[in-house]
Structures are given as structure tokens and as C-alpha cells.
């Protein structure tokens, strides 16, 4: 096919129906009823082990001072709803940060400690803990102002075909929702359940870990954890999921 042909194909693809905002449902909707109950039940959802570890770390006095809690007193109140506003543009640096990035910022700039590192058990625990404080609250991130270019980049990423299998996120997560793909039921592909405990991982993982799995699935480049590409994509997914309830820590197959 010629370049013009490819451009035409891409334009046609963009026209392929995207799900309307009011159709988009949380990821847990696509789980079996038993797994939905298990996700809800704190004593049976293994993600809460990480939440507990995160809570402990948040207030631990192990010589590292100041502790998280010394600046964020009464986190159940003071950080309630915080996770539902991420990713957002950091006013000082102009960069897009997600919840993990914000926690690392406090760790490095305010606690003067080396970063935990993406996907470390400590960062997963703290992220799961802070996210759990927003459980049930509506996701409300902005796509306007400084966030706009990031949103546009994320949207373009979501809509373009990629990888050797030449598939765009939208083809599966809008076009094929409810279909079976290797034992999984395809959902709307949103991040409200992350970090999530995934049976296949036998542990808790971040949204970026899930995105890397989808990239690999279509044989596309896996971007780094915390990369600009995945951050922009995370913002787009969050805007798509606006007003849906936060459900981290999720439970997934």
C-alpha cells in the first residue's frame, strides 16, 4: 500500500467507534461475580497486604525523618481523594506526574532519601495505600490547560496501530469490549483498579506493568516504567474514565 493508502487507512481507523463516556465501565465489571466479591472483601483480596505494608511504611519511624505522616497528618482525611486527581501536571517542573511520581518526589526532595524505584515493593505498597484512601471516589483528572498537550499525546498513542500485530488500543478496548481473548474478557482498558493484584503476576503490579503487557501482546515496544509515553497514555485513560469510582487495589486474572 502507498503512504497515502496508509494515511487513509489510519483516518478510517480513527473513525471506528470509540466508546461513549457513559458506556465505559470499571475493569471489575468484567470479572466473574466470585472475583468481584473477592476484590471487595479486604480479607480475601491479597492487594490489601500491600496496602497494610504501605500504611506501616507511611508512619514508620526508622530513623528516616521526616516520615510521610509527619507532613501528612491524618492521611485518611488529608489524602482522601488525592489519588483520584492523578496524573496531573507538576506546577514547579511542568512535567506530568502520576501518583507513583508524586510519592517519589516526596521521598527524594522532602525526605532526602534515594528513590524507591518503580515497581519496588515499597513504592507499590505506598501507592496502593494512598490509592486505597480514594476508594469509591470519582476519578477527576484534568485534560485542560497545561495538561492538554499530554492528553493529546496520550490520545494519539491510544488510537494508533502499533507493533507487529498492528493493533491500536482502541481496537480492543473500544471495538472488542466483552469479547474473549485467551480466557480474558476484554474490558474498556482503564486504570482505576491499579495498582492491582494479578493472579498471573502472583503479586501486585502498577498500571505501567499492565500497559507493558498490552504492548508486548501486540509485539510492540515496551516503554519504560514511568516513561513519558506511558504517563501521557495514563492521563488519557484517566480522562476516559472520568467520574468512575476508584477501585484500587483491584484484583485481576
Amino acid at each position, binding site marked *: 500500500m*502507498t503512504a497515502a493508502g496508509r494515511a487513509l*487507512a489510519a483516518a*478510517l481507523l480513527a473513525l471506528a467507534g470509540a466508546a461513549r463516556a457513559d458506556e465505559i465501565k470499571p475493569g471489575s465489571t468484567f470479572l466473574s461475580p466470585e472475583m468481584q466479591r473477592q476484590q471487595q472483601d479486604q480479607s480475601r483480596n491479597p492487594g490489601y497486604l500491600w496496602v497494610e505494608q504501605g500504611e506501616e511504611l507511611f508512619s514508620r519511624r526508622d530513623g528516616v525523618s521526616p516520615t510521610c505522616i509527619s507532613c501528612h497528618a491524618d492521611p485518611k482525611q488529608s489524602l482522601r481523594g488525592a489519588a483520584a486527581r492523578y496524573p496531573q501536571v507538576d506546577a514547579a517542573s511542568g512535567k506530568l506526574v502520576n501518583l507513583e511520581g508524586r510519592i517519589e518526589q516526596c521521598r527524594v526532595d522532602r525526605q532526602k532519601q534515594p528513590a524507591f524505584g518503580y515497581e519496588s515493593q515499597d513504592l507499590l505498597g505506598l501507592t496502593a495505600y494512598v490509592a486505597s484512601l480514594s476508594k469509591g471516589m470519582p476519578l477527576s483528572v484534568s485534560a485542560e490547560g497545561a495538561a492538554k498537550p499530554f492528553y493529546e499525546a496520550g490520545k494519539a498513542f491510544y488510537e494508533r496501530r502499533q*507493533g*507487529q500485530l498492528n493493533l491500536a488500543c482502541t*481496537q480492543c478496548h473500544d471495538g472488542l469490549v466483552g*469479547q474473549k481473548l485467551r480466557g480474558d474478557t476484554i474490558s474498556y482498558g482503564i486504570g482505576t483498579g491499579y495498582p492491582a493484584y494479578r493472579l498471573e503476576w502472583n503479586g501486585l503490579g502498577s498500571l505501567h506493568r499492565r500497559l507493558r503487557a498490552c504492548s508486548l501482546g501486540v509485539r510492540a*515496544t515496551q516503554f519504560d516504567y514511568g516513561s513519558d509515553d506511558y504517563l501521557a497514555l495514563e492521563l488519557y485513560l484517566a480522562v476516559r474514565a472520568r467520574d468512575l469510582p476508584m477501585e484500587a487495589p483491584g484484583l485481576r486474572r
Partner: protein
Amino acid sequence: MRLAAIRSALIMLALASAPASALEAYKVVGDAIPAPLGGKIGDLKRGRALVLDRTQGNCLICHQVPEPNEPFQGTIGPGLAGVGARLDTGQLRLRLIDAGLLNPQTVMPPYFRIEGLRDVAPAFRDRPALTAQEIEDVVAYLASLRTP
């Protein structure tokens, strides 16, 4: 819509000049590629193995085949039972090589194309998902699926 898409795909093909890639060349006639790629002869057994293989062909994430012992078959594409009666070998070949030639919005991956792909993972870069021989093997297997 479908006819229009086929027509525009054919026009685009007509406009395309000599293939730039090192892949075996092929000629589209109607909605088919009648001649075997590189003159290779397909092997049904190898084709079946490729279709069932979960890493290489990975057809079963999207399709069902008449193999009752295969778990987790997909429902995204049409079931392949009887496909050998519905389509002739040339039509099967084109759909495997690049189903986008018929339907620009297709979900079916192009198994014999390296151009126009983006952000391909390093391990899969600059080679088609299936080689010319493998395409012919899979065509031979699909052609044998004659019972709906």
C-alpha cells in the same frame, strides 16, 4: 462499504510502485493472491502446528479452530471451521498476507508485511510475523478445514 474498501485497496495497489522490501513479491488478483509465495509448497502438518502455537501464529487468541482439546480459543475473528470451503487458497493467502488490503480497519494482523508498522518490539522488527514458507504451510492447513 466493503466493496468500496476493496476497490480503493485495489486502486492503491495499482498505484504502488515496485515493492521496496526484501519480502517475496506477490500479485493481487481481485480479492486473492493466486500464486504461492516464492513458489513454495505448503505443508499441512506444519501449518496446523503454527496455527495452534501460542507464540508464533497466535491465531487462537482471536479465532476458533475445530480442535476440541485446545483451551481458550478466541471469539474476535470468524471461526475457521469450514474456511477452506468458503475461501479458495488464493483468497486465504491474501487474508493472511495482509487482510488490511480488503478492510483498512481490520483487526486481523498482517502476517506478511513489514512496511508501515510502528513501534515494533526489537525482537520482531524487520521481519514478517510469518515467513513465505510458513504462510504457505498455514494456507495448506486452512484449505483443509472444509467442514463447517
